[in-house]
């Protein structure tokens, strides 16, 4: 059975894939379906959903189109989630590989730094960083990555510690390969599978963290975000609950989709490794 078909044979993976595909479609089509500024006034304020078919999900307190905001918010969530997770995985793998491969003092120093980052709750770290540096998309990405790279670093280090004793690493040394080339060409690629297995959890957590930051008003003010929409809706939670519920559901489905699809991929690769 091909990997793709095996992947799609589990219901979780199928559900995750459908949710993720919908999210990506939303993000990609946002500026096609809703060109112009999603934060512009589109109609009367607080229009409930399913009343006016030109504004299917109604409008918020300021009369902005909720559906347009939802689509543009998908874009922010996905971009921040993926970018932060990619940054965390990249930094974590490099730090973990250097620590595990170099050993000695380098390992000691890098792991103490990792400890230091890990003792601070990652959300507090992100909060503090954005408060100090100021909210913008790039800063939010860095803030989230700052609190999440330690997990991948530990996993990568543990894997590298076992790989560096393998014969093929000794063989690379014996032919005179530079230690950095050995670390990044021979060791790192083989240490990656368990690190990448963490990516779905990290992406999901990053999307949630971004939403939480935006909810607290620390997101990029120039972009629509789901967290920001929920915060906006809170003021009128009793009279217009849909303003918080709609982006809330979108957030839950996204995190669920990322998680399920990730689990499916991990399971598929585990099966394949188990069989070979």
């Amino acid at each position, binding site marked *: 059975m091909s990997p793709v078909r095996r992947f799609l044979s589990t219901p979780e993976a199928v559900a995750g894939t459908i949710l993720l595909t919908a999210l990506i479609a939303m993000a990609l089509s946002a500026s096609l379906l809703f060109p112009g500024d999603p934060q512009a006034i589109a109609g009367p304020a607080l229009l409930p959903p399913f009343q006016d078919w030109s504004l299917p999900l109604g409008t918020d307190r300021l009369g902005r189109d909720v559906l347009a905001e939802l689509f543009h918010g998908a874009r922010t969530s996905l971009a921040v989630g993926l970018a932060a997770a990619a940054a965390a995985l990249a930094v974590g793998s490099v730090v973990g590989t250097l620590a595990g491969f170099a050993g000695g003092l380098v390992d000691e120093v890098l792991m103490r730094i990792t400890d230091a980052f890990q003792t601070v709750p990652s959300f507090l770290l992100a909060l503090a960083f954005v408060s100090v540096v100021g909210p913008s998309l790039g800063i939010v990405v860095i803030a989230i990555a700052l609190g999440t790279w330690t997990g991948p670093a530990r996993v990568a280090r543990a894997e590298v510690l076992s790989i560096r004793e393998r014969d093929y690493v000794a063989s690379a*040394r014996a*032919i005179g390969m530079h230690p950095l080339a050995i670390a990044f060409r021979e060791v790192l690629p083989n240490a990656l599978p368990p690190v990448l297995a963490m990516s779905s959890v990290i992406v999901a957590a990053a999307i949630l963290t971004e939403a939480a930051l935006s909810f607290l008003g620390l997101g990029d003010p120039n972009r629509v975000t789901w967290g920001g929409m929920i915060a906006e809706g809170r003021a009128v939670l009793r009279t217009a609950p849909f303003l918080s519920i709609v982006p809330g559901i979108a957030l839950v489905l996204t995190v669920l989709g990322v998680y399920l699809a990730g689990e499916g991929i991990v399971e598929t690769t585990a099966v394949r490794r188990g069989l070979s």
Partner: protein
Amino acid sequence: MSLLTISNLTKRYRRGGKTIAAVDDVSFHIDPGETLALAGPSGSGKSTIARLVLRLIESDAGRIEFEGNDFLALGGAALRARRARLQMVFQDPLAAFNPRATVARMLDDPLRIHGIASRAERPRRIAALLERVGLTTDLAPRAIHEISGGQRQRVAIARAIATKPSLIVLDEAVSALDVSVRGQILELLLDLQRQEQIAYLFISHDLGVVRAIAHRVVLLEAGQLAESGDAHAVIDAPQSAIGKALVAAAPRLNRTRP
């Protein structure tokens, strides 16, 4: 003048509070183009000596002189450059290759690292190396796990000879192969030695193979040198207790060459 001279080499490991000497005051030499076999029971320190000679681990005492220079004095880039002259073939040819690599990449590495051939010239050199070890050139794009164990060990030998070394350390390099393949690989090694004057430090617990391929033999016991001398002489009439025990334990020490 000898190619490799090892004097009073010692390597200790600490295990559970007490120190054991995996290699204890061992001295021997290898002449250019010669095969020296290192034999001894399991745990006698053969692989440790191989790793010390290749500077994969550092010794606690002793000297290693290679091609007339103090090999232990080298470090960093100078050591990496000198490694071209001193290569290794491992026991398990699957473990000795990056599982993601292709045959071509494994042979490309030494050529690139030591600047032996330009990028444009390398595919031709790789093909020549494959042919030299008796493989067809269509193996080049294959992944390491897509070729047989015997082919893999030939690729390992091709990788070792790519830099034109004067010495190759073979740690149980034929032990994992089945008998017919083993004979072919030994034949290849003898042929390479005849044509290119490569010396071998040949590690094996199989005295039959040692007798067939080695000029001289060093027997080890518990990290110490127990006996050394002409391979046929030592195996036909061992003097040391461990030599007698090893010969007695050897399944069939017939006098056939591979």
